[in-house]
Every structure is written in C-alpha cells, then in structure tokens.
C-alpha cells in the first residue's frame, strides 16, 4: 500500500478583503468583502513507503496547506487524499497513530515545564507503556544527542532553539509513526543543529522504513535527504521527479570552476563558455551540458590548469529559475487570454 496518494487535490480559502487605514477598518466592520483565493489547484502525486520526498515552493505556494490536508487538519475543497489507506479528514485513530507533523514554527511542548513532562503525556495519549516509553525516549534522545537527565529535565523555555527542536522531534516520534510530515523542521537553527536534525531524520527513515515529506527553504536539507522532489508554485504542481532531473531540466548549463597557474583573462575564457566570475587565477564559467566535455578538454590542453571542478548549478538557483519560468508562462497565458 502506498503511504500517500493525492488525486486532483484543490483547496480554496475565502479571505476577507480589507483596505488599510481607519476608513477601511470601519467599512470592514460594517460590511465585509471577501474574495476566494485558490491555495492549491488540482495537484496529484503519491509517495511510496520508505520514500523521502522534498516538497519545494516559495512562501505562499501552498506547501503547508497540502501538508495540513494530508494530516486532516484542513478539509480539501475537492479531490481525494489517502494516507496509509485512510481519509485524513475523518481523523481516525488508526491513521493518527501512524502519522506525525513537525512544524518549525509551532511547538507542542509545554513552555513552562520540562520536555520530559510532554513526553510522559504523549506516552499516555498513545497508550505506550511506561517502560517502553522510557526505552523509546532513550533511543530517540541518543540519536539526537540529547541528555535524558539534562535537556529533558529543564523547563522548555530555558532550552536553546536547537535543543527545543530536538525535543519536539522526540515528542513527535515517540509513537514511532510510519509517515512523517516535516514542515521546515530546521527553521532558524544553526548549522550544527541543522546537520543533527538531518542526520536524525535519515537514521529514523532507515531504521523504521518511514515515509517522509519534507519542506524546507534550506536546500542543503533537501539535497542531503531527498532523492525525489515535488515543486509547487502558486498552488500548481510544476515538477515531480528526481533531484538530478530537476537540475537537468531547469538548468541546462553546468558550472565549470577552474583555477589556472597564470592570471585568468575573461576575454580568453569566454571562448569556452559564459564567464560568470573571475577572481585572480580562478574563474567560474557556465557551459551547456553537452559542451562540457569539449570545453574541459580544450581548457586542459591550452592552459596550465591547477584545479578544475564541474557541478550543477546550486539547487536554489534551479528552483528560482523554475519559479521565474512558471511566472513568465502564467503572464504569457494571461496576455493571450486578454
């Protein structure tokens, strides 16, 4: 059975339209105007058991709305959703025991009390026997580098952001869910904490065979964890495939970074590709994918090369280009319609 199946899923919100200023506020109080905003438009995809999928999109693209529909928090306007065979909006206990949602900007831990108290509470809610809950807590804390007698015994308000997120993960995974919805789990964390969270998610996925749908604005999270990405923009699905396919499709050029023995000359290097940057003896070129072997050969034969690397364009640039292309297509469509 597939972990997640989404077919033609749509969600529209009715939002209040309010003009700024006192006049607008008074008018809004007396006579409200609303408009319908399509947040998600007919998207379809599925996720296999054990798969880790990156869910990309700019702010307001509809990622969180999709996550909320997948967890049953928000009811779809149309389309169907199945998560481990259940319809999420029915909120059946059999489904809720198998899923979890972690949000980087919201927390379930009780602010004034140690995280250990929330864990005990969650153990009771999920009906996990005390001894088993302790064993699971130890295992999860060990994997995250948390001390059972340190971080778990301090009031949550005294913990750092990184420690709090790690405790959130323990609370969210205590019941060993099979499907993880992670909405910006590394938001605001420093590099070390980001790496720890990433490693932990990878390990949990490997040990429990759990499916993961991950949104993050840190591309390092996506490249480190996900082979497959789904990209949505303005509520529409624009790409669903392997990460390397995304780069190949939306970044037809590759980056060639070269360090020469002599100072680099932009005029000379432009014979091999578009010169992006020249700094002393180092230069970065953009070369069409098919031309890379020829350009590298010529560089190596005509210059004294100290170092040379070929890489895809950074994934965030690729995604930015995808969004720009999608916006351009939408504008062109609008003009044609007009």
């Amino acid at each position, binding site marked *: 059975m597939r972990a997640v199946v989404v077919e033609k899923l749509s969600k529209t919100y009715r939002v209040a339209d309010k003009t700024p200023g006192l006049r607008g506020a008074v008018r809004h109080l007396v006579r409200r105007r609303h408009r319908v905003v399509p947040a998600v438009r007919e998207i379809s995809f599925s996720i296999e058991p054990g798969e880790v999928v990156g869910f990309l999109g700019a702010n307001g693209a509809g990622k969180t709305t999709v996550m*909320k529909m997948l967890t049953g928090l928000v009811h779809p306007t149309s389309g169907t959703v199945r998560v481990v065979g259940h319809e999420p909006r029915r909120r059946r206990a059999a489904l809720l025991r198998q899923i979890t949602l972690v949000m980087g900007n919201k927390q379930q831990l009780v602010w004034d009390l140690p995280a250990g108290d929330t864990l005990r509470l969650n153990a009771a809610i999920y009906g996990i026997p005390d001894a088993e809950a302790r064993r699971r807590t130890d295992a999860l804390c060990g994997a995250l580098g948390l001390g059972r007698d340190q971080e778990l015994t301090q009031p949550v308000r005294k913990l750092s952001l990184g420690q709090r997120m790690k405790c959130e993960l323990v609370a969210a995974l205590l019941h060993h869910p099979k499907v993880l919805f992670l909405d910006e789990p590394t938001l605001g964390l420093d590099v070390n904490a980001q790496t720890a969270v990433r490693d932990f998610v990878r390990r949990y996925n490997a040990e429990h065979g759990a499916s993961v749908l991950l949104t993050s604005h840190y591309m390092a999270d996506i490249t480190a964890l996900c082979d497959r990405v789904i990209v949505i923009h303005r509520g529409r699905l624009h790409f669903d495939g392997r990460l390397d396919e995304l780069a190949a499709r939306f970044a037809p050029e590759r980056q060639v970074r070269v360090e020469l023995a002599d100072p680099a000359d932009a005029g000379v290097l432009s014979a091999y590709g578009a010169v992006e940057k020249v700094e002393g003896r180092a230069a970065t070129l953009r070369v069409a994918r098919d031309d890379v072997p020829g350009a590298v050969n010529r560089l190596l034969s005509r210059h004294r090369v100290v170092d040379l690397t070929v890489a895809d364009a950074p994934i965030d640039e690729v995604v930015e280009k995808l969004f720009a292309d999608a916006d351009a297509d939408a504008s062109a469509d609008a003009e044609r319609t007009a």
Partner: protein
Amino acid sequence: MRRYGKTLCRFWGVSVAAEMEYRANFVISCLTTVLTLGGALFTVGLLFQNGHTPGGYSWPAALTVLGVYTLLDGLQQTLLAPNRAALTEHVRSGTLDFVLLKPMHAQFWLSLRRFSPWGLTDVAGGLALVAYAGWCLGVSPRAALTGGVAVLLGGVILYAVGFLLATLTIWFVKLYNITIAMSALLEAGRYPIQAYPAVYRAFFTAVLPVAFMTSVPAAALRGEAGVWWLVGLAAVSGATFGASCLFWRFALRFYTSASS
C-alpha cells in the same frame, strides 16, 4: 477508557505542576474566595432584613442556592474557564493542530486538559455552605443524593453552554470575553430564581438555562424539586451537551489552522 483515565491524570499532573510555579496565586485565590463569599452572604442577608422572605425562601434555603452557585463558580475557575481560554489560544496560535493530530477525542482534550487548583477554594467554600444549609434544613440522605446528581447536571449545562460559545472561536478567533460572559451568566444564578420578576424568571429558565444550573439543583438538595423539574434538568443537560458535541464537529469543518 484506561488510556483516557491515565491521560487525564497526566493532564492534571502537568497543569498542577505548571501552576505550582506561581505560589502567590494560592494565597490570592484563598483571599478572593473569603472576600467574595463574605460579600455574597452580606448581600443575601440584606434580602432577608426585617423579616422579608424573598420568593418564600428561608435563609438556609437561600444559602443552598448561594452554595450551589459558589460550587459551580469553583468548577468554572478550576476547569471550564482555563480550558475555554486555552481553546481560544490554541486557535489563535495554531497549536490546535497538535490536539487534532492526537488519537484522542479532541473535545475531551480541550475540555479537561487544563486544571487550575486555585478554583478548588471556591469548590470547598460552596460545599461547606451547602452542607451547613442542609444541616439547618435537616435534609434527608436521599434528597442529598438527588441534589448531588442535580448539581452535576447543572455543571454539565454550564460546561456545555460555555463550550458552545468557545467553539465560535474557530470562526472569530479572538473571543477572550467568553469567560466574562459566562461569569455574568452564572452570576444571575447566585440568588434564588424566585427573587427575580416573572419576565426574568422566564428568560433565565427558557432562554438562558440559569435556573437549571443553580435554583433547580438547590431545590433538589432541599427535597423540594418536583419530578418534572428534575426531568427538565436532565433534558436540558443532555440537550446542551449533545449540542456542544455536534457544534464542535461542525465547526472543525471550517478550521483553517493559523498560517505558518
């Protein structure tokens, strides 16, 4: 059921632990109870000055109403008000998401998650007042038992009306005044319903069921409530509780969850 029982114990354990961080609250709460109860006794006492018997009530009979009111006010402060406030806060901050994601009845969670021990001083004050009035009136054990059940049903009505109003927070988000509205509503039940003019009596019986929260349970305690009043109490209690459950399920269809 065992899972729910264990969870409830932990809910309240966590709540009490959180409240213990603020010890001064206990002293203030005791002081408030003594002053409020003293003030109420003084006001009720004024009604009985110069041999007056408002609505045919004797002094101990009026104390049963005041006792039931104080008891329910204690219940309100211990359980109902903290949980209504928490529901509004959950919706405003978006943490209702975490409640809805747990394999537990959401209404159970949202009605019983918070427990503020400071309201227990009012519960104790109310019980003492009811016991004293019962002793003065020579209430039979059977009437005491019927009265106990009637007080419970009155508490259910108070809970259900409050939860119905709190559910509106799904649409209107900021409804912090619900607690004030509910206190004002219960306040009307502080004095015997017969002490009010006929129009108010009808309003507090048929529209806002205040009479069913305090006066009818107090009458049951005294062994004076007719069968039809008790049937009416049970019916109103069941109907308001059922309505609160149905309205909550209906409201969840409109929950949009605070944005991230």
